[in-house]
């Protein structure tokens, strides 16, 4: 057997085992909309932890982080900073979101806006923005899968057919297993990723430099400026760092899928205790950066930093190990991608299509429409993935610039009685417009600031202004959550 055949069959085997587990775990439960999207709201600490870790540790962790350490250097440090902070935010906001979710039987993020602000238009708009900005995140997983197959086949299989094939599997997986199957596949994926990350993160610096400390000594000797901000870039300095860390830690649970996964928990205390321990799980992130930095010295001429981790693995280890690590990587792309597809499809069918175009649809029809939507959204992400060449981290930051615009509406909605629907609506529009303008005119970062963060500041300012300007309605003080339960 050739090395590429060995590696590829390892990857296929891992995907097959994971899919069987997913189908089996999903098949044991009757699949109505509530079971498919929030697992019947009965997940304890362990399953919630796995599900949340499952969607957090994605291709971005595996290939993107090492890729940025390779190509950008210092700016990749933002990844180590924002993760613990994201859990600090979640400690404060997820438990109350869960309380609202249980009280009004919410399934999606847009449901939350509907209940809090009593506006179908706002809720549909939130669903639309959520779906649009999940697409770059899905695209990122696709690019990752394509890279894995491309590198593992030693360039024999082109990235495009690999991506199409991989996502057919993910879509099939989403169709049949729903959120419960995905949570169990996360178990396999987390063990494999943990093994792969610790192994590569220690072995690669050891093989080429004699240890992590010696690897750093070599980088400091060769390119000391690479290790501090702005690294190999011109415009990602300390201002960019602060604004990006704030944007991404605020936005972490504004992803519709992260927001939605909090509804799967059994109690709000599950979420709070989860937040306390989650930062420890991030300990694999620095290891990924070490691999990227090692690759920078060992393989200095790669066309794309995102290739660095797998290329150095291929250079250093036997084919079966490349296959095992590639398989772990494939699952870290598939599991989050499955959750993202599921969320985007549910949002589209339940919060955008039904209320606006077909109010008479039954839950069963919504579930069917959601499954069709899975295919459409995947196809769109696939087209973008084939035709663009943006780095994995840049795709993630693009998504963050969009979804973090929900943050004012969520946080003020939870803790302030005053804030109202029109204020939040105009805030999101202002934020998204600013982000779109700055990005399309290539002004990200803008005067050193992350464009998404500029949009967020504008968003907050607009929400505050409109809230103060609009007359206070008498009902708002007593009716904190609008309680239009019948329409959910």
């Amino acid at each position, binding site marked *: 057997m050739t090395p590429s055949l060995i590696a590829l069959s390892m990857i296929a085997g891992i995907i097959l085992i994971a899919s069987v587990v997913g189908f089996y775990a999903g098949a044991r439960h009757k699949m109505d909309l509530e079971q498919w999207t929030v697992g019947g709201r009965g997940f304890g600490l362990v399953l919630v932890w796995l599900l949340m870790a499952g969607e957090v540790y994605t291709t971005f962790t595996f290939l993107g982080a090492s890729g940025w350490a390779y190509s950008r250097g210092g700016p990749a440090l933002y990844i*180590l900073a924002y993760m613990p902070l994201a859990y*600090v935010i979640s400690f404060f906001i997820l438990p109350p979101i869960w309380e609202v979710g249980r009280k009004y039987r919410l399934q999606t993020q847009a449901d939350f806006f509907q209940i809090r602000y009593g506006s179908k238009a706002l809720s549909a708009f939130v669903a639309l923005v959520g779906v649009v900005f999940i697409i770059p995140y899905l695209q990122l997983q696709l690019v990752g899968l394509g890279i894995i197959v491309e590198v593992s086949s030693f360039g024999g299989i082109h990235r495009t057919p690999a991506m199409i094939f991989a996502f057919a599997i993910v879509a099939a997986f989403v169709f049949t297993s729903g959120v419960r199957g995905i949570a169990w596949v996360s178990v396999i994926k987390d063990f494999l990723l943990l093994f792969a990350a610790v192994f590569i993160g220690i072995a690669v610096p050891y093989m080429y430099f004699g240890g992590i400390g010696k690897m750093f000594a070599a980088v400091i000797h060769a390119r000391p400026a690479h290790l501090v901000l702005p690294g190999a870039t011109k415009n990602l300095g300390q201002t960019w*760092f602060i604004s990006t860390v704030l944007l991404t830690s605020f936005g972490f649970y504004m992803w519709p899928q992260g927001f939605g996964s909090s509804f799967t928990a059994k109690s709000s205390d599950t979420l709070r205790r989860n937040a306390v321990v989650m930062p420890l799980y991030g300990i694999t992130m620095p290891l990924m950066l070490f691999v990227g930095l090692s690759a920078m010295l060992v393989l200095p001429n790669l066309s794309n930093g995102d290739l660095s981790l797998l290329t150095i693995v291929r250079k250093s280890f036997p084919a079966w190990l490349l296959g095992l690590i590639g398989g772990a990587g494939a699952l870290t792309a598939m599991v989050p991608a499955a959750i993202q597809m599921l969320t985007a499809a549910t949002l589209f069918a339940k919060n955008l299509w039904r209320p606006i175009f077909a109010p008479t649809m039954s839950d069963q029809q919504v579930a069917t429409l959601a499954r069709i939507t899975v295919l459409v959204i995947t196809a769109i992400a696939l087209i973008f993935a084939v035709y663009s060449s943006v780095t994995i981290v840049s795709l993630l930051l693009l998504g963050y610039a969009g979804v973090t615009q929900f943050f004012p509406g969520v946080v003020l909605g939870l803790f302030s009685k005053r804030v109202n629907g029109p204020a939040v609506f105009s805030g999101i529009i202002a934020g998204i417009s600013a982000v779109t303008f700055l990005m399309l005119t290539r002004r990200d970062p803008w005067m050193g600031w992350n464009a998404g963060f500029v949009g967020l500041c504008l968003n907050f300012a607009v929400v505050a202004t409109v809230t103060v300007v609009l007359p206070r309605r008498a009902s708002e003080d007593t009716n904190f959550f609008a309680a239009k339960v019948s329409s959910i």
Partner: protein
Amino acid sequence: MKRPTLGAIFFGLVPFVAVCFSVSLWDRIHPIILGLPFNFFWLILWMLLTPLCLCAAYRMEVHSGNISPAKKEIH
């Protein structure tokens, strides 16, 4: 919704100051600690210290009666 106590918010802010706002103080290579450049060492250290801050925030919330103390959960 009940707002978190000031004490809990204080402990939540500590990691923000440590790894975000103070970047100009720690973003440098020297001193090298445990073989790591200082910025890497500092951020990894705070991955370990953040759970401690959140533990403290948790206790503040329990103490104030905002949340009832953790019950044993059955899976």
